[in-house]
């Protein structure tokens, strides 16, 4: 098994990476190397493959029905009215609000619970810690659809006798307030916090909770941003679970709203794509402003190994 880098080595690596970035930001010119051409070509192909579906979606969202039928590549005249129609016909205003509220609640819950859990696994020695962590990781192997029925019975009050949460906000948020993957992410990051900091905090009379809130959390912005972003993307795109636990539009999110454009007997592709663009726009905006912290968070959590 590969050894886990010590806190000191990891911190040094982070500092070195930050220095390199700063140097680049200072204006060091990019050097084209012929030997790198195959790499550039592969990257270009990968970028095209990744970007083409998005281009198709954006283009189709501005087409008329005829242009989608005739499989045009680009609209002759952009139909911005498709966005207005998607917004009004599918009640997108309500679904958008619901998606924002649900995502905010889940992100807050994940950050609080997973920070505490990740810290405990990383910094507190307690009996059975490693076994419990392995069991937690093992739950990552369980497909989410397998958990639907047990979760549904719980939120309906069949397992623990409370009032049903069907059509209520808790049904859409409580089952997702903590995830094994984010706990793992935090644990990996917190393991890289230098022990010297903990020693210094102890000398000052701080316990684990004060150390976590006063020292660890302020240092954890990259991984917190990563966790928030991943949680946001996952929650924002949820479809099957909200469809299962809501029978009225009151708390339905955007994913369910999009579904109404797929009728039982025929497509409305242009509206569907307009609706899809409205749905992914917030994700793109959020990622655009947090991409640096996201990358740094992934790197410093040790996921690259």
């Amino acid at each position, binding site marked *: 098994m590969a050894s886990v880098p010590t806190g000191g080595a990891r911190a040094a690596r982070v500092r070195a990476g930050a220095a390199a970035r700063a140097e680049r930001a200072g204006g060091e010119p990019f050097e084209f190397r012929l030997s790198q051409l195959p790499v550039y070509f592969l990257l270009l192909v990968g970028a095209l493959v990744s970007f083409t579906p998005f281009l198709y979606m954006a283009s189709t969202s501005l087409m008329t029905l*005829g242009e989608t*039928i*005739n499989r045009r590549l680009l609209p002759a005249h952009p139909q911005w009215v498709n966005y207005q129609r998607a917004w009004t016909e599918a009640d997108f205003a309500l679904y958008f609000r619901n998606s924002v509220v649900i995502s905010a609640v889940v992100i807050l819950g994940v950050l609080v619970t997973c920070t505490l859990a990740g810290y405990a696994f990383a910094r507190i020695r307690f009996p059975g810690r490693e076994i419990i962590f392995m069991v937690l990781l093992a739950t990552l192997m369980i497909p989410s659809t397998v958990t639907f029925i047990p979760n*549904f019975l719980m939120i309906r009050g069949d397992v623990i006798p409370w009032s049903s949460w069907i059509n209520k906000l808790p049904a859409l948020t409580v089952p997702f307030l903590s995830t094994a993957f984010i706990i793992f992410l935090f644990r990996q990051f917190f393991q890289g916090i230098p022990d010297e900091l903990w020693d210094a905090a102890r000398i000052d009379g701080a316990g684990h909770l004060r150390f976590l809130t006063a020292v660890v959390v302020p240092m954890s912005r990259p991984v917190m941003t990563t966790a928030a972003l991943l949680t946001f993307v996952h929650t924002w795109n949820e479809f099957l679970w909200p*469809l*299962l636990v809501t029978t*009225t539009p009151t708390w339905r999110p955007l994913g369910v709203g999009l579904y109404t454009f797929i*009728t*039982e*007997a025929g497509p409305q592709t242009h509206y569907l794509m307009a609706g899809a663009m409205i749905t992914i726009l917030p994700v793109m905006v959020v990622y655009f402003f947090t991409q640096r912290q996201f990358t740094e968070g992934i790197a410093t959590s040790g996921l690259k190994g």
Partner: protein
Amino acid sequence: MKRGTLVLVGVFTLLLASGAALAQADYENVDPTGQTIVFWHQHSQQREQVLEDIVKKFNASNPYSITVKAEYQGSYGDIFRKMLPVLDTADAPNIVVAYQNQAATYALGNGVVDLRPLVDSPKWGLSAADKADFFPGFYRADIFPSFGGARYGFPPNRSMEVMYYNADWLKELRAAGTIGFDGPPTTPEQFRQAACAAAKNPFSKATARGSIGYELSLDASRFASWTFAFGGNIFDANANRFTYDSPGAVQAMTFLQGLSKQGCASIVTERYGDQTDFGAGTTLFTIGSSSGMPYYKSAVDEGAKFAWSVAALPHITPDPVMDIYGASVSIPTGHSKEANLASWIFIEYYTSPTVQAQWAKASEYFPVRKSVAAELSDYFDTHPAYKTAFDLLPYGASEPPVPGYDFVRDEIASDMAAIMDGAPVENTLKTANATANEILADQLKSLPKN
């Protein structure tokens, strides 16, 4: 002794009559006033708007102050998955759309109400004239012999599998001498001839690239339709078992595999891709539900703009055998008698002649009442393809209304994919049939003993 026997017979008859009267009288003294009814459905966009209009009119006009709330819950499959965990609970809706096989599955979980006391109720039920007004096949489809003749649904609409064809393209192929018949193909050989000719001779008015003879969607209903067309069946009602390996099914799948191998047929690669390609004039034939006609019309009007229509699938049987299907509406258990009665009153309204006419015209489903058909003559004039399909109703057959059929359908779609990919037809269908009958046997274990 004679007198004693007569007395016994009299008492026995009285008991029987009172028992029957009791069953009929279940709802006679029930008051549905003020009930709020939740109706789960799968309609969206325009059909949902029409349904909401029907519901609004019912809410405004019914004398019992019954309020119906129609709620979109996703596709038929989504609704089926949502229903399973809430069967026989108060979380189930008051009315739900359900195919007959889905209703059968619900019945295994004691999840649907037997509608016979409501339909036959002297006070609330249908008159003899009303019952006779329904197309017999549609009316009987929701009666389950396996469940002692219980009625677990009521039909608000139906549709059928039809062959959509590009009439102008067929004319071009005929003029070019690449096919030897006029009009839509009526036999599999004609179908093959036209599909293969189309694959090599693109339509002159096509507005997109490509030329496909027949675009096949992998679906259990396509399987059933083609099997019927080849004189077979997918279910033996007498033996109560699936027959996916019957000679008709083997012939049908061999035919389709051959078309695919020859390059005359290809599989749909995106949802409703066949409709889109048909509208663009790049696919000569598709097979699908008649309820798709308004979408096909839009696709053609916005696409290549050509003459098109529908016809029976090409068949080797003397007459066409049309796969007719459609979800009925069922009343789930878990609610009071008052709510059940209120639900039935709405169902009666929904299937009344006036509402049926409105629903049929707006949705392009077929009405379930014969009297409504008589009122559609103007509609037939402006919708000739609909009329053509409607005229095929007497040739209807249906897929099995047995529990577990939803799961069997998923298996069959995978098996069709394997066959089109070159898997040996007989072996694949033998395995498919065994799997289907295992699923059925598993479901039937829970059947109530009569």
